[in-house]
């Protein structure tokens, strides 16, 4: 009898916990009820980062909120806990009658392609990925991350005292290499003699590893580190705060969103990737019956897709900021083409004035 009770207890706890797991997160941001025209319904599925990642997904979410405020759109967000959730979340959003469904992040590219094929009458958007042939009901949004990273490289090169800077990447894929080579190009443009340490954490969520890697770069003598590693990079800000001493200050540079508040004393700047602008822009165009299905839309410095964080003047010298403004102009005017791969970077180095 007693034994049976024990088994029952365990099954009960299991059920309770499963109920906790199964609960799909539904921070439904239903908008107020102003019944005029049929409202645009937009759904968004994040990748495993989640909308509080203070980075990429957070930015996309801001774009969606803006669409809600300014277009009166009805929005719905589903966070993915694991890759297996992508298909289910997209299916849920499509079934929910959304006119446009966003997949945030390259990791969702397969899931979006599949959903688009299965639902030819629905519209989809994917951020950070361009299909070789874009389905007619999908918009691909990409960014010129290398241009923004170039500016971060300029800041790092102007601010370093040790002539050694670092780059911390998430996973070693082409997308993140765009950040690395853009950054390296910016550093080299200011001073080709500065050494760039580089490391990839093999994860976008492991902030403990981000911290350990940043620790080792700082210990190796780097005094500015730029990261492009999502949640992993939060560890960089922890490391920057802890490795700073009264006689030697070390700096972090953030990515995607303005990450200044993660370490107010130790953040030089952040490369803003305006996923919000892009998400809003595409959504607005759909609202204005200007749907860009089947196209790849690229947002660079010129289009306001990437930029330098507004808080950059807090810790960065005016001289560095002036240099940034100067280079920014040159990139927008096309005088400088920023490399985004190793090959392009190598030929870029050869062209630099000695």
């Amino acid at each position: 009898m007693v034994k049976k009770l024990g088994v029952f207890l365990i099954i009960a706890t299991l059920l309770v916990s499963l109920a906790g797991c199964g609960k799909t997160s539904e921070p439904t941001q239903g908008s107020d009820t102003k019944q005029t025209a049929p409202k645009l319904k937009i759904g968004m599925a994040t990748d495993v980062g989640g909308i509080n990642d203070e980075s990429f997904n957070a930015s996309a979410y801001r774009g969606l909120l803006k669409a809600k405020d300014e277009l009166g759109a009805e929005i719905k967000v589903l966070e993915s806990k694991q890759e297996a959730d992508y298909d289910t979340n997209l299916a849920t959003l499509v079934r929910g009658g959304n006119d446009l469904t966003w997949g945030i992040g390259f990791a969702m590219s397969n899931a979006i392609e599949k959903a688009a094929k299965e639902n030819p009458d629905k519209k989809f958007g994917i951020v950070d990925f361009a299909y070789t042939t874009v389905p007619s009901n999908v918009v691909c949004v990409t960014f010129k991350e290398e241009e923004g990273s170039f500016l971060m490289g300029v800041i790092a090169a102007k601010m370093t005292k040790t002539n050694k800077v670092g780059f911390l990447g998430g996973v070693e894929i082409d997308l993140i290499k765009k950040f690395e080579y853009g950054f390296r190009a910016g550093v080299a443009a200011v001073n080709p003699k500065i050494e760039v340490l580089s490391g990839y954490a093999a994860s976008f969520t492991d902030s403990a590893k981000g911290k350990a890697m940043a620790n080792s770069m700082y210990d190796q003598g780097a005094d500015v580190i730029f990261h492009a590693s999502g949640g992993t990079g939060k560890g960089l800000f922890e490391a920057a705060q802890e490795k700073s001493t009264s006689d030697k200050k070390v700096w972090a540079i953030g990515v995607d969103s303005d990450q200044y508040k993660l370490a107010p004393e130790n953040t030089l700047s952040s490369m803003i990737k305006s996923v919000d602008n892009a998400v809003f822009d595409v959504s607005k165009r759909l609202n204005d019956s200007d749907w860009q299905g089947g196209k790849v839309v690229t947002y660079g410095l010129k289009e306001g897709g990437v930029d330098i964080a507004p808080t950059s003047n807090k810790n960065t010298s005016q001289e560095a900021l002036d240099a940034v403004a100067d280079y920014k102009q040159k990139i927008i005017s096309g005088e400088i083409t920023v490399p985004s791969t190793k090959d392009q970077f190598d030929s870029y180095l050869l062209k630099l004035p000695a």
Partner: protein
Amino acid sequence: MLPILATLLGNTLLYATPLIFAALGGVFSERSGVVNIGLEGMMTIGAFAAAVTALGTGNPWLGVVAGMLSGGLLALLHAVAAVTFRADQVVSGVAINFMANGFSMFMLYKLYGGGQTPHIATKLAKWAIPGLAKIPYLGDALFNNYPTVYLAFFTAFLTWVVLYKTTFGLRLRSVGEHPLAADTMGINVYFIRYTCVIISGCLAGIGGAAVSIGIIAEFTEVTIVGQGFIALAAMIFGKWTPWGALGACMFFGAANALDAIGQTIGLTKYANPAFFSMLPYLLTIVALAGFIGRANAPAADGKPYEKGR
């Protein structure tokens, strides 16, 4: 070479600290005869409670206490199932893990509307030990650290004292080896096992707190991913002794640290970075399979005790 060694040492401590707490918890529980697979879940709930409390009250130490208490509370559940109701201890532990994960995720969405807490500005600050922290290179790595790091080593010492130098420790070990004999000598087996399981939960909870408000400054669903199981492996690798567990945790910490430093110092020229990421887990298997020899588990480990049988 010396700076690299210092970095390696600093990062080893960073990774090892939470493991040490959980592994010592495992020592308490298993030496009294209760297998605790639920360490992972107890770390999760501890990390979660610490993060929420530190955010809410602005005091990281209250966070550590909250982590400890919540881990202990969850362990109480394990004790009720495993000791009183004599349920299969592995099944109960697995249930604990699921429950901790589900509960903390559910509460995260309720409290913060997403799968992670905001950044915790009021986390544990480092304590530099006067004098010692000034030693070139090693001083900063060893003696300018989170209070949880010092606490971990002190807890290992304390565990050793309790286990081998006190009456309670002697009773604890006898209950884990031969509960019937202990019972005939008048030792309350249930009381000892309850106490030990709860202590193990408290320690695992502190271990969780050491991650969420020490090493990093947030709690997400990936804050605790497998540390509890690595701690369990470390405890076995350390042959169920406090110092052995501590050493094994340092060993696993070092493997992680090597992974983190490999690329910066150019080790990846000789091997694929993926190899270094695999290293901690590979070493776990090698250590468990090859080097500890016969696993000398306490004789009554995992066996429920029924009075009068």
